[in-house]
């Protein structure tokens, strides 16, 4: 168990393909850190660099007190769970679990004990003598986990370990991995493209895009205070609505205004910051759950009500997704009360929770608040 540090790590393929671009992370001992981002964002490459499966171009990687930058995978004392599980097809579950200990020359008794302890933790006792091909997907996934925990390594590396499971099993295994990690207290770096996995599992989340770390924070902070437009739209489902608007000052209020009919007051906390951009265009962000039909809204007032035509109605049972014709190019999605009875073509009167308004610089896409 140890701290893991990425110190200005670069991974460049060829001349100028920056798969990992100046990544610095300080992962604490026992922490569950999730690396998340769209495919091709460099999260898997970063993990493979940590595992030693890829050489890094520049920078340093530390596990515990040790500089492991130039060590072979076998000398880094880490365990990895692969997306395809990568179980050794010719070995029984027992031999799969014991393989790493065997390579390290542990005694037969010791291997047997460790394997049985790991099998006990994961409920694999009855499967020890089977071959991987005789196991279901979920069981294979457990064996892959077991192969990682059997050795009590410094850190667990997991590369999309749930993406081959069906939806139900995935939710279940998600919780199991989290509680297993809490129980064992081993530093874990977990790569996924699924922001729900990231939100539910991570102590902290590192959002990456195009090789660059966008934001490193707790799930709630990431959701409430995204540093830039990428994080804002990547975290949360459905994604945050983003549309261009102007900052205007009238009647003692500061408003974001888009077109003739769309105008919202700016919350007190944001006034000062946004006034710097007076009469300029910015990008406004509103999460779907911060838009509610006036009848069901708690805080409808003059300054936060807009009227928007309904394009699509998606009833989900517990809530309804309304696609509204907004000021931007994309429709504005609102997550509204299930009692709402609107149909496409109707005009919805919605109240926006302006306290949760986000604003971004249209050029840099950095937050303005």
């Amino acid at each position, binding site marked *: 168990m140890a701290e893991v540090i990425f110190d200005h790590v670069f991974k460049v393929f060829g001349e100028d393909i920056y798969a990992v671009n100046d990544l610095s992370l300080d992962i604490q001992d026992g922490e569950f850190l999730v690396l998340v981002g769209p495919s091709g964002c460099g999260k898997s490459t970063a993990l493979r660099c940590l595992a*030693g499966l890829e050489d890094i171009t520049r920078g340093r990687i530390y596990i515990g007190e040790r500089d492991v930058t130039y060590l072979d995978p076998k000398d880094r004392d880490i365990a990895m769970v692969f997306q395809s599980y990568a179980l050794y097809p*010719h070995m029984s579950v027992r031999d799969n679990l014991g393989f790493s200990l065997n390579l390290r020359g542990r005694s037969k008794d010791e291997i047997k004990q460790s394997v049985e302890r790991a099998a006990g933790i994961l409920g694999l006792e009855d499967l020890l003598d089977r071959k991987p091909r005789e196991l279901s997907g979920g069981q294979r996934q457990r064996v892959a986990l077991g*192969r990682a925990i059997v050795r009590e390594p410094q850190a667990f590396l997991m590369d999309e370990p749930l993406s081959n499971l069906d939806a139900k099993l995935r939710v279940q295994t998600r919780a199991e991995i989290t509680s297993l990690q809490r129980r064992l207290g081993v530093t874990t770096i977990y790569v996924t493209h699924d922001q729900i996995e990231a939100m539910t599992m991570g102590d902290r989340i590192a959002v990456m895009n195009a090789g660059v770390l966008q934001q490193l924070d707790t799930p709630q902070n990431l959701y409430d205070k995204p540093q830039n437009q990428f994080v804002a739209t990547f975290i949360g489902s459905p994604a945050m609505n983003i549309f261009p608007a102007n900052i205007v000052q009238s009647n003692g209020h500061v408003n974001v205004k888009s077109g003739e009919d769309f105008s919202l007051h700016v919350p007190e906390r944001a006034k000062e910051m946004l006034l710097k951009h007076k009469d300029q265009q910015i990008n406004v962000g509103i999460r779907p759950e911060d838009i509610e039909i006036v009848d069901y809204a708690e805080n409808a007032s003059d300054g936060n009500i807009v009227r928007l035509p309904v394009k699509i109605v998606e009833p989900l049972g517990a809530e309804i997704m309304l696609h509204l014709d907004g000021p931007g190019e994309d429709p504005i999605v609102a997550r509204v009360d299930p009692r709402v009875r609107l149909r496409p073509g109707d005009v919805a009167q919605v109240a926006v929770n302006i306290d949760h308004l986000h604003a971004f610089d249209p050029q840099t896409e950095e937050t303005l608040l």
Partner: protein
Amino acid sequence: MTATARPRAAEATAEQSQARSTFINILRRIPFYLLVLVIAVYLMFPFYWAFRSSITPDADLFATPVQYFPENPTLDNYRSVLEDDNFIRALLNSTIVAASVTILALMVGAFASYAIGRFSFRGRTPVLYIVLAMTMFPQIAVLGSLYTLITDLGLFNSLWSLIITYLMFTLPFTVWVLTTFFQQMPRELEEAAYVDGATPFQVFYKVLLPIAAPGLVTTGLLAFIAAWNEFLFALSFTQTPDKFTVTLAIFRFEPQTAGGFEIAWGQIMAATIIITLPLIILTLIFQRRILAGLTAGAVKG
């Protein structure tokens, strides 16, 4: 019309049409099975004829009308062949040569194809194609220069001359087939082994090689058969009966009966059957593994 009558009628016609379609299906299959039969006879008849001749007493060999199974089957031919020291010696020689060729081809081939299949290095593709080009030349085209080479090395009339030259056509084949095997193995399997603490050599012999076992068995068997059946090099590079392989021994067969002055077809056929048996037995033993090699997926199911 009642509600029950109609379904019953429909049922009857359904049954009829089902019977008819089964009948048509059988009819359709007849040409297929005829074809299978023709191919089987075509392939098996020479072997059957050799077997028939081997158990026919010499006197009955040319009897008319033809006996498709001899009236007085005999094992005399086998007895005399197996008492022939030269033939036993040839069996031993062939076993030594074919086994050495197989083992060497698998060892060298496995290393070569692991390197070609799993590592990227400059000149990898050219190497693969040069290897393939080796199989391009007809045996007869390289025979002259090989002969010079063998005599210069002082290997003429030794089993080594055969082992070395047979590798020339078994090794490229082995490398090609095994390279495909190694290339198909998922990268993550290898990486998992590295993370688990294996050195490249341990990855090779503890993880990749066992998975490639069906490929090794298949190529090994084919290499063995090719070496066992080879004739031209054996004819050119060996001279004395104590270095003959089985194909050559049969070619130069000296009959044990009739004072050695007539061609002993019965004994030749018996010898032919005897040298075929090891191949059949080997194939039967390994056929399950060969099939497994053709069908098994690597990790994901």
